[in-house]
């Protein structure tokens, strides 16, 4: 009897402890998110206002030159949806919308920007985007390449607010073992399989020029430029790109070699780079050199250190342009100069890109500052439609209207998952939710198709993608009536009447309220329905919303 009592007490205590732990885990997310909302400071956003005005003026001049009219500012929900898609790769949650509604409408976009930049989701999201640019999506050489480590390292750099110059320098100069110095994977990703020790200098030169200079020099590997694509400044003239330009750049990486003892990782060895140019009779030793702005290249130091210093010198215009153009594309869906990694030195870049690049270089290549400016510009906040008129391509091209672009696959997946939830799915969510999100996104990307490192190039939707959305498991499961897995169906149940149900579905999925016409259209479909029939109609509505162009595109 006594033993039974003790056992019962122990079990009760254990039960209470488990319940308390679960409650803590369950409420930890909302509590932490509430704290973050409270801690938001607008100082940093205010500090960039003068720069935002400069960029706005440049955009206005661009529109005037093109003689096109400007669209009005989009409503705050549309702007905030763009922020969510651009900074963390998913739509807004109902929880976030309700929080923002407590603030004055004019401040909501700035507050949301700061909120998202205080969330680890942004560094997580950008680390994947940048990893694709830096090392691609290939699995790389077996044992010598750890993409996940590289991405985690990059995430850490971003969350610690390291400048882009610091990140680029560490990648270019990196030495050591790819496991404890994850940045070394930038080099080891190019080591050919089959026991080779030397990094592939051609791939490294091509990658470096595309990502950090915004120049596609890869064609120069085999021949001089003959399509008038590549020019470098030489004094007050321009000279066409040559094979020498490419291979001299590649020569900086010639010493990047795996140590004899592979456990020591990548070392810098004194090795010559030899190459036989087109039409040459024999190989020659190629000395490292840069294709332009030679005066910025330090005379002493290890080759890769010299290259990194030249590259990230604030007077090297190509570096900041390349990075700014890429970040603009990630946030908005479309680069200012397209393709994102092809910004010829001899052509005039759009004035807003130049202003943003100058500011980026003058402010320590500060990524968060750049993101704040982009998010605050009028160009980012303009409507994608004109009232009483039709948008033209010219208006889109000079950002007089916000250009609509198809969402990238991970944004589609992120949106679908977020749309069926009430609370934000983030790093503060319970681990089960995070794990489920991770698994579902991976499954979805596998079926939907991943754009790989070309994700910033526009792609058309394919039939399998459309079939996946029309009939696939993810949309089907996320739109069915399931109050536990899909809380949106619960809130539609609990909404005050059919109007509330339709409004909630629109807010959760499209992040906007329905127009009166839409409201009338869909409320009529719910009218008089009860229980299972009503649940089915709500499920149909969510399915329809998730299959719209509006949901699948940034607008």
């Amino acid at each position, binding site marked *: 009897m006594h033993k039974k009592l003790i056992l019962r007490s122990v079990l009760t205590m254990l039960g209470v402890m488990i319940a308390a732990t679960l409650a803590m885990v369950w409420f930890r997310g909302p509590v932490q998110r509430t704290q973050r909302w409270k801690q938001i400071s607008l100082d940093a956003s205010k500090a960039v206002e003068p720069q935002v005005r400069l960029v706005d003026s440049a955009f206005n001049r661009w529109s005037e030159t093109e003689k096109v009219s400007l669209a009005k500012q989009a409503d705050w929900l549309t702007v905030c949806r763009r922020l969510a898609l651009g900074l963390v790769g998913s739509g807004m949650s109902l929880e976030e919308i309700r929080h923002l509604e407590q603030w004055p409408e004019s401040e909501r976009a700035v507050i949301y920007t700061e909120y998202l930049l205080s969330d680890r989701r942004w560094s997580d999201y950008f680390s994947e985007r940048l990893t694709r640019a830096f090392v*691609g999506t*290939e699995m790389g050489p077996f044992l010598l390449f750890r993409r996940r480590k590289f991405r985690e390292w990059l995430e850490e750099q971003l969350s610690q607010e390291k400048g882009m110059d610091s990140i680029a320098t560490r990648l270019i100069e990196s030495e050591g073992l790819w496991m404890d110095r994850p940045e070394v994977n930038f080099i080891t990703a190019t080591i*050919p*399989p*089959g026991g080779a020790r030397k990094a592939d200098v051609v*791939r490294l030169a*091509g990658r470096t020029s*595309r990502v950090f200079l915004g120049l*596609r020099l*890869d*064609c120069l590997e085999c021949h001089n430029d003959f*399509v*008038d*694509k590549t020019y470098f400044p030489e004094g007050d003239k321009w000279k066409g790109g040559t094979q020498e330009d490419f291979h001299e750049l590649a020569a900086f990486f010639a010493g990047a070699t795996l140590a004899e003892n592979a456990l020591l990782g990548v070392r810098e060895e004194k090795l010559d780079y030899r190459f036989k140019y087109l039409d040459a009779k024999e190989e020659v030793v190629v000395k490292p050199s840069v294709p332009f702005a030679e005066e910025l290249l330090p005379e002493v130091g290890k080759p890769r250190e010299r290259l990194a210093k030249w590259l990230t010198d604030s007077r090297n215009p190509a570096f900041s342009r390349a990075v700014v153009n890429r970040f603009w594309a990630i946030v908005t869906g479309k680069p200012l100069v397209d*393709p994102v990694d*092809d910004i010829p030195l001899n052509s005039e870049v759009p004035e807003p890109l130049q202003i943003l690049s100058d500011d980026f270089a003058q402010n320590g290549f500060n990524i968060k500052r750049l993101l704040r400016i982009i998010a605050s510009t009028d160009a980012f906040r303009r409507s*994608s*439609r*004109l*009232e*009483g*008129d*039709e*948008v*033209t*391509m010219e*208006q*889109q091209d000079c950002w007089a209207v916000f250009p*609509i*672009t*198809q969402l990238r696959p991970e944004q589609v997946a992120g949106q679908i998952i977020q749309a069926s939830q009430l609370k934000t799915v983030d790093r503060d969510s319970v681990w089960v939710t995070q794990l489920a999100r991770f698994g579902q996104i991976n499954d979805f990307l596998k*079926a939907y*198709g991943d754009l790989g490192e*070309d994700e910033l*190039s526009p*792609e*058309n*939707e*394919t*039939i*399998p*993608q*459309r*079939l*996946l959305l*029309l*009939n696939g498991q993810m949309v089907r499961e996320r739109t069915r009536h399931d109050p536990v897995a899909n809380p949106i169906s619960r809130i539609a149940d609990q909404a005050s009447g059919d109007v509330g149900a339709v409004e909630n579905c629109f807010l959760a999925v499209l992040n906007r309220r329905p*127009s009166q016409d*839409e409201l009338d259209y869909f409320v009529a*479909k719910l009218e008089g329905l009860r229980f299972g029939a009503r649940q089915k109609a709500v499920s*149909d*509505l969510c*399915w*329809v919303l998730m*299959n*719209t*162009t*509006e949901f*699948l595109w940034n*607008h």
Partner: protein
Amino acid sequence: MCESLTQSPDCSGMSMMNRRRWLGAASIAASSPWLTLVSEKLARGEQVNPERSATSLIVLWLQGGPSQLETFDPHAGKLIGGDTQAIRTSIKGFDFASSLPRLAERADQLSVIRSMVSKEGDHERATYHLKTGWRPDPTILHPSIGAVVCHQLSDDVEIPRHISILAGLWPARGGYLGSRYDAFQTSDPRFPLPNLQRIDQDPTILTRVKDLEYLERQFAVGRRVALKETLTPHESATDQALKMMSSEQIKAFEISREDDSVKKKFGDTPFGRGCLAALRLIEEGVRCVEVELSGWDTHANNHALQYSQAEVLDQGFSALLDQLKERGLWQKTIVVCAGEFGRTPNINPLAGRDHWPHGFSVALGGGPIRRGLVHGATSSQPKLDVEDKTVNVESPVEVPDLHASLLHALGVNHALELQTPIGRPLKLSQGNPLPFLRDV
């Protein structure tokens, strides 16, 4: 090719100026679409004979790197042959490995190239190389051969024209031609098509689609004119998906409609069923089908593993060949069987063979491809310590030349230049057709 993009294959000297002039004219004429009709018409100078061309392509893709020594180039009884036994083929004086008895009987219908060489020894890069005919280039994604064929030849089918059955990690892609040329991926034909629900099986879909159309109209207000160009692909994908969901042609995927006796010939394996589905799809008018058989990456226990895969290949490939002939499709269909590379002549301590792009085999047949040909040879005693390992290969064949030959056999001008999205004109293939492959 540079004057009018047709006349001369080289791109040097004076012709560069002509190229520039042409590019300027083409860009004005074509404005936004980068794959210009102008370029096509200009480039059609070197015409192939359509009457002697095949119209469809089946790629039997052996992912992982099939061993040439355990399949089409056995070297039985030699040190490098390991445990491989040889079997006589219907081509006098040539043997296959004993793992391919059925194909050995039908060898007189095929061409076998035993001297393929490439510079790519990594699975992903080599797969890209073999499927596209180009080595990976970070600035551009090249289209797979099936995508090129679909781009160049038009069809009127309601189902996808480019299909990859048992698609693995790196299925055929549309590359710079656009994702609409990506292969439509399916799994084992024993299972229903993924995400494909017949409209008539789900009445609610019609109501949903009607509501969807209503919302699409709302979204288009104020955006319609400018966004027509960008929205069209989305609408088109929706239309095509819905068309497919109501098409009778999707029955071509349903191998259960075949007689049991036919199914039995292909073998009770996913690959065998894939070959049967490929046959049905080609019969329905699909332009290019890829069927993948993986499991060839045998770094350990090579002989047993290669033999087990080869048996699956032997049954599926030979049944496909027979059925194509029986159904009158052999003259109009090219079948090519290849992997990304071969395997090393030496056997490693784990009784495996490693990657070997310096002399491997490809088998092909159908259409105007020559029959009963074995081209090239690999050495029985290869020198492995030399830098240029192709010294061990007699009459080496480069991957781009194989691609050019396939395109040529399909009536596509391999030398046609397209203006790519990166502003660089590229030929469909950088190789030249192999004259010995052409049936005379």
